[in-house]
């Protein structure tokens, strides 16, 4: 006779990506029912943004997503630009694209760190965090801060690139390219990882559509959707790249997409460095204290490390604060209804694999 258990995985656990807990009902080690429990990180950002003057929100938004804060800055800046009709100089667009790609790399480092931790491979956790630290050094060099950069603002970026920043980034990319073969050996093609990933948690193209998945899970299932390609923003229309796609849809395919995405980010960053135009870095917006954006609404999206990340914002033209800003994170789709559906009948050991290969980011759900 099998035993019935009811346990919690998380909120603090090496295999859990962030403060997020999973309430599991088990029969033996088979999952009978699963309920994602979140709310540990609810800080009421959307409400907070409705209370503050437009420009003060620039320093609030990066705190929504800890592993990848720059995407929020970019979306908020673009939201205001779209509503208020502000132009962005070409150099600023390139700098922003560079920051976004660097942010993707940083976020993928944290993902492979947790993917390694989830299968007991702690070496890769340490390595990835160490390599991300070198990236944060460059962020600090450019923006003055390591995690929350508060660098992109409506009209461009806060300050110009310091001298030598591009060279520094280029030599970091050289280092990283060599380093990727180490990661290949220790994580992506590691026999232990293969036995935990191959054929596990297979996503089908039909599920992608039905549950609203995007990013690496969708690409691993063969659905080549990528906001950078489908609706190019910033300077992506001037860069050359292919959307990385796999066809198996299992955890291994998702991690292969992650690996390809990291290599793609390196190649995009090299293109950006080569094409970086000179000129203005900021098109000054109106006087911040008197700035009341025009009435209107807009949906701005970008391809984050986890998929389509978007802001839907409404301005009423009367107050400086937005009437409503809705943050749409890709983890909302993967980490709630889809997880509940997918994990039924799977084994307990697959929970960390699910969380790390889908890279669930709970602050996107809590906000």
């Amino acid at each position, binding site marked *: 006779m099998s035993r019935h258990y009811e346990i919690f995985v998380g909120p603090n656990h090496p295999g859990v990506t962030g403060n997020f807990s999973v309430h599991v009902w088990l029969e033996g080690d088979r999952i009978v029912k699963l309920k994602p429990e979140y709310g540990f990180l609810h800080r009421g950002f959307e409400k907070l943004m409705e209370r503050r003057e437009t420009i003060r929100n620039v320093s609030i938004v990066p705190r929504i997503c800890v592993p990848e804060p720059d995407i929020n800055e970019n979306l908020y800046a673009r939201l205001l630009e*779209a509503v208020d009709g502000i132009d962005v100089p070409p150099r600023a667009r390139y700098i922003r694209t560079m920051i976004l790609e660097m942010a993707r790399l940083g976020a993928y480092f944290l993902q492979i760190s947790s993917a390694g931790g989830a299968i007991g491979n702690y070496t890769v956790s340490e390595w990835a965090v160490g390599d991300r630290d070198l990236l944060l050094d460059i962020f600090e060099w450019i923006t003055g801060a390591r995690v929350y950069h508060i660098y992109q603002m409506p009209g461009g970026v806060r300050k110009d690139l310091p001298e030598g920043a591009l060279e520094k980034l280029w030599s970091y990319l050289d280092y990283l390219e060599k380093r990727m073969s180490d990661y290949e050996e220790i994580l992506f093609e590691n026999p232990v990882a293969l036995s935990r990933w191959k054929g596990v948690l297979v996503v089908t193209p039909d599920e992608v*559509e039905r549950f609203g998945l995007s990013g690496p899970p969708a690409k691993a299932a063969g659905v080549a959707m990528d906001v950078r390609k489908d*609706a190019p923003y910033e300077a992506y229309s001037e860069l050359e790249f292919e959307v990385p796609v796999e066809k198996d849809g299992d955890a291994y395919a998702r991690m292969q997409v992650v690996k390809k995405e990291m290599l793609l980010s390196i190649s995009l960053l090299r293109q950006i460095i080569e094409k970086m135009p000179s000129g203005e870095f900021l098109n000054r917006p109106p006087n911040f204290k008197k700035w009341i954006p025009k009435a209107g609404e807009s949906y701005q999206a970008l391809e984050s490390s986890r998929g389509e990340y*978007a802001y839907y914002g409404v301005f009423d033209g009367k107050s400086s604060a937005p009437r409503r800003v809705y943050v*749409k994170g890709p983890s*909302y789709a993967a980490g709630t209804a889809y997880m509940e559906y997918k994990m039924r009948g799977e084994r307990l050991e697959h929970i960390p694999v699910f969380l790390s290969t889908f890279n669930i980011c709970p602050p996107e759900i809590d906000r």
Partner: protein
Amino acid sequence: MKEQFEFEEIKVKEGDVFEVIRSLKSQGFSYFLFVTCVDWYPRDYFEVVYAFRNLNSGRNIKVKVRISRENPLLPSIAEEFPMAIYQERELAEMFGIKFLNHPDGEHLENMILEDWDYGPPMRKDFDSAEFSIRLFGERRYE
């Protein structure tokens, strides 16, 4: 300025929401982006915005419905779009909207907030600064 995504927009009445969304789904708008609510206080309505995408053609569509702030009630679309289960629970908790035929039943509160009985916090007439002073007392740091 050109928008990044072109959204077609349809405005529907409260009673037609479910039928309209179901027919959109059968026309290929089966990729659910989000549902959210905009509070137009002091005017007496909420505007609930649903957004969908057609993955084959890349077309996007927004469905907007106005509902009263006093008695906000909508049919649940969770049967058609499983992701809406959680999005609707969030709307129920944050705006106090009631959903008919929701898979989790009638009482949808307590998803993110715990032991919360101070009213839906995302409504415009909920003043969070005033609330925190009421709850914790005014503190001054010299």
